[in-house]
């Protein structure tokens, strides 16, 4: 069972709907025991970073612990940004620190938010994109992005006037800046791949 962490932010239901649509078992929960027993965890998030970190509260330590013990964890959008060390969205906030890097503003030379469908180049060695193709459009909606500083992380990029990290994988920790649950058929395939990873 995939557990989608329900921590009082928007859009958790969409992620659950998308997993179920692809035939994967998934449920929403914020119970520590359910989280510890899950086959894999999803940390979604439509919220400002500071609000999301505050809402996650004491669950942060638990998620960190189970992820470091090897349980697959997928962060989406702000849930992905929280995997990093820190963010400067509306003030300074610490993240989970599972992947080295900082969340910083998308440069103002571009239209901000980065909103809409952008092409992501998909490296062969990132498990989330197995069978998806060499490059695909995914849906983005964000004003900040993760400046990845982790030499052990694999990164898929999109072009937004610069190489913007669109997805990162570090061992069992996965993240997407885009919304797979809102990226049509391609996004559903990515979620199905994550469900497959959780079965291993």
């Amino acid at each position, binding site marked *: 069972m995939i557990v989608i962490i329900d921590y009082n932010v928007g859009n958790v239901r969409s992620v659950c709907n998308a997993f179920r649509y692809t035939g994967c078992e998934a449920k929403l929960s914020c119970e520590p025991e359910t989280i510890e027993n899950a086959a894999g965890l999803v940390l979604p998030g439509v919220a400002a970073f500071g609000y999301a970190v505050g809402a996650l509260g004491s669950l942060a330590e638990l998620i960190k612990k189970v992820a470091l013990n090897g349980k697959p964890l997928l962060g989406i959008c702000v849930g992905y940004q929280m995997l990093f060390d820190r963010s400067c969205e509306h003030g300074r906030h610490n993240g989970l620190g599972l992947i080295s890097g900082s969340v910083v503003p998308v440069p103002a030379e571009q239209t901000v938010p980065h909103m809409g469908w952008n092409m992501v180049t998909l490296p062969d060695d990132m498990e989330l994109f197995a069978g998806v193709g060499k490059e695909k459009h995914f849906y983005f*909606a*964000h004003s900040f992005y993760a400046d990845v500083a982790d030499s052990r992380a694999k990164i898929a990029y999109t072009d937004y006037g610069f190489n913007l990290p669109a997805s990162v994988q570090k061992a069992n920790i996965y993240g997407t800046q885009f919304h797979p649950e809102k990226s049509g058929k391609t996004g559903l395939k990515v979620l199905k791949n994550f469900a497959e990873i959780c079965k291993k």
Partner: protein
Amino acid sequence: MLTKRIIPCLDVKDNRVVKGVNFLNLRDAGDPVELGARYSDSGADELVFLDITATIRSRKTIVELVEKVAENVFIPFTVGGGIQTVDQIDELLRSGAEKVSVNTAAVENPALLTAAAQRFGNQCVVLAIDARRSKEQPDRWQVCVKAGSEPTDIDVVEWAVKAEKLGAGEILLTSMDADGTKAGYDNRLNRAVSNAVNIPVIASGGAGKLEHLYDAIVDGGADAVLMASITHFEQYTIKQMKEYLAGRGIAVNL
């Protein structure tokens, strides 16, 4: 490269999609959940649902509608119509909407934009502007509120600039003069606003032919084009629109 977006708009009244001309003479266009799922499958980039009744009774209906839509729609969708508080926004986002659009409430209480952006991030906050061209000055537009029924003294371009500073993450810009006429978007309006702000602008009102979409993007500087009549009544499919734009060198998600 970020693609330009094609966004069908579903005006919802009494659980049905309707479409009018210049905000009047509504005509039935189908079931919102069914139409939403069809668009999601047929390559639309995004959807907008506007509750055009926006009463207390319809508020509950729209939350239930959003929940149903979210079970079948795996592209982003925005919900708007009569939204006044951060808690209402929260409820709609939790029900499955990606973004909410606010209009009258933001004019009456601009701090709503800031409160919503701080809590949900500005990418969730769409400012809808219903614009009417000034009779005296052709390059000025006034903001209208309450579903277009009440003109204000507020200048559209000034309001857009202010709203961006307050926290709006996108502007859904409807020309009341062009709406439902199928005579083309008001691209002077679109250009005036898109030049003045750095957030995405969705052009709305007046789409009738494929070249209107191209013109809104190229002449109007729009990041996305919204349409209703030409797609609900199956004059053009989403694929036809995208193939046309791609053929003229516009990046789209085909």
